[in-house]
């Protein structure tokens, strides 16, 4: 196969660019621990309401870490108003008793699918105090766009 010298140069450049992309992903994943939320834990969607893991909803402290426990259902977040501290890691534990929902805190990197049968877990640190909007980003029926919650981040810098 005859390959023109321009093509060789271009293909070499393309390989270098792609290698740089891949290296950036691998280095941030293993060097800085940046992974998408990939928690593996199952739960019976029919018994979410009585499951001890989701009995106490809202903000709590487990082993010195701030943990927020929420249930997402058609078409609300439970609880729909929260207050957490700035500057410390906050772990969200989420599940759904009905259909798939999405969990996005607008203006942050918090983004997770919330799937019936599974517990999603995502951790973030809010750098600034303020009021944040939580929206459902996965279509969950005719009231999807009404599904929202508010989170107040207090203390720390503003």
């Amino acid at each position: 196969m005859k390959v023109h010298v321009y093509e060789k140069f271009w293909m070499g450049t393309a390989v270098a660019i792609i290698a740089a992309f891949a290296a950036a992903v691998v280095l941030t994943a293993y060097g800085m621990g940046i992974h998408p939320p990939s928690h593996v834990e199952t739960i019976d969607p029919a018994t979410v309401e009585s499951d001890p893991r989701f009995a106490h909803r809202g903000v709590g402290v487990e082993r010195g870490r701030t943990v927020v426990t929420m249930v997402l259902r058609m078409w609300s977040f439970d609880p729909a108003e929260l207050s957490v501290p700035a500057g410390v890691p906050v772990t969200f534990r989420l599940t759904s008793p009905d259909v798939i929902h999405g969990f996005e805190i607008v203006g942050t990197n918090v983004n997770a699918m919330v799937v019936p049968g599974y517990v999603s877990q995502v951790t973030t640190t809010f750098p600034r105090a303020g009021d944040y909007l939580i929206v459902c980003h996965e279509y969950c029926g005719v009231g999807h766009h009404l599904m929202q919650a508010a989170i107040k981040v207090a203390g720390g810098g503003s």
Partner: protein
Amino acid sequence: MSAAPSARWQRLPLAHFGVALAAFGVASLMAVMQALSRADLKLPARTAQIYYLSVTAHGVLMALVFTTFFIMGFGYVVARTALGRPLVGERLAWTSYGAALAGTVAAAWAILTGQASVLYTFYPPLQAHPAFYIGLALVVVGSWGWCAVMIRNYRAWRRENPGLPVPLAMHGMMATVILWCLCTPGVAVEVVGLLIPWSLGWVKTVDPVLARTLFWFFGHPLVYFWLLPAYVAWYTVLPRQAGGKLFSDPLGRMVFVLFILLSTPVGFHHQFVDPGIHAGWKLFHALNTYAILFPSFVTAFTVVASLEVGGRMRGGRGLFGWLTRLPWGEPLFTAVVLSMLTFTLGGFGGAINAGFGMNAMIHNTAWVQGHFHLTVGTAVALTFMGLSYWLLPRLAGKELRFPAFAQVQPWLWFAGMMLFSVANHVTGLLGMPRRVYEASYQGAGAASAWAPWTAVSAAGGVILFVSAMSYVLVVAGTVLWGRPLKDRPEVAWAEPLEPVEPRRTLWDRLGLWTVLAIVLIVIAYGYPIASLLGMHHFGAHGIRP
């Protein structure tokens, strides 16, 4: 009349294009309604129910029906004209067409009567009427019939031309056929094995992560099923229309083969933020996704180099002077070049989407719809529109009606899509979720920043609608009222700058690459699917939206 206006074989692709056009027309109406709705305009009869119904109809009719029927029709044109021999298997082709059409009608009935507002991704436990799933399964079965016909024609040509490489256009279509055969089992198992029995009430529950995994096993290669026929046009139609030749035939063969190899083991990049799947497997799919950028990088070079060859053969000089000599008044040429330009932007966005960590910034936001309207919504769809203008006179033997509309239409599409897509990328970065009926969130501060951009998006949507209707007018007008051509132009394919060597190389060994692709798929999906099935997991009951 001795010269029949439509010889027998041309009826087959024309019938496919007819269904594609009808689906496109209905889906365009849905689209303009959604763009206006998102900008919160007070339209008559605007309700959330109708909005989500229309999002489902738009997705299914555009992404599944318009594309699949167009690709099947184009595939038959390639098999007949690039191979230069009579089609074998015409009866199976017509039967497959009937199955896919019946499936389309069933699914469309379920959607339009409001019994399947589950969007085109149909994630359970949202549950649709069984006719929706059965209809989609029939469309896939029809497409398998198409694959069988394409393979039969490929084999017939190989028997008659032992040792020779198949023409590049057919090579590209065969890559399309093979990757489709590799990925559709995923959705077939999901729909036939899980969703149809569940929607009929035979089984009570479905595991939604398993269903999503099977869907995206199919769902990402689906985008290459759309893209590769467009690449066939870029490599084997465009250079000739530009007045030149294809810069490199062997690299084109390599590109199509790499898509066979890499299209499927990438699906987890749609599930980066899903629970139940370990991060390590997601990373493996992310790296495969980067690898699949390579064939598109090569395509960018080869196709633009071919354009330069064309511009210079037409007498263009200087570093950029050749650009001015290109046939900008030709609808096919303009449509394809604007498609390629748009695809470059879409490719950059795609590299961001594949970014393991960065994906969390944009997953399920308006950014995503901004992205795929550049790729499938323009690179693919606008190429198909350009191909329609090129193919219609050649297949129907009629002069293109309203040619001025055909000339302006690609520019309108490009302009409308730039407004629509840029606005959606911006609102996505600002956190606006996709697929919401309205995005005011009761006046939340973050949501108010989106409003000006949704207006830009709506303006883009209106321009796109004008463009879409121009396309429908030209195509329908040509078929219905086009003047018969005395000398029907031939479907002729671009020649390479250097003649193809009369022997098969590594890149022509499609069977070998198929086996390698299967090995990679087993590595990428074997363990994750086994562990989903193996762990103590629970199903979810269906909920009709």
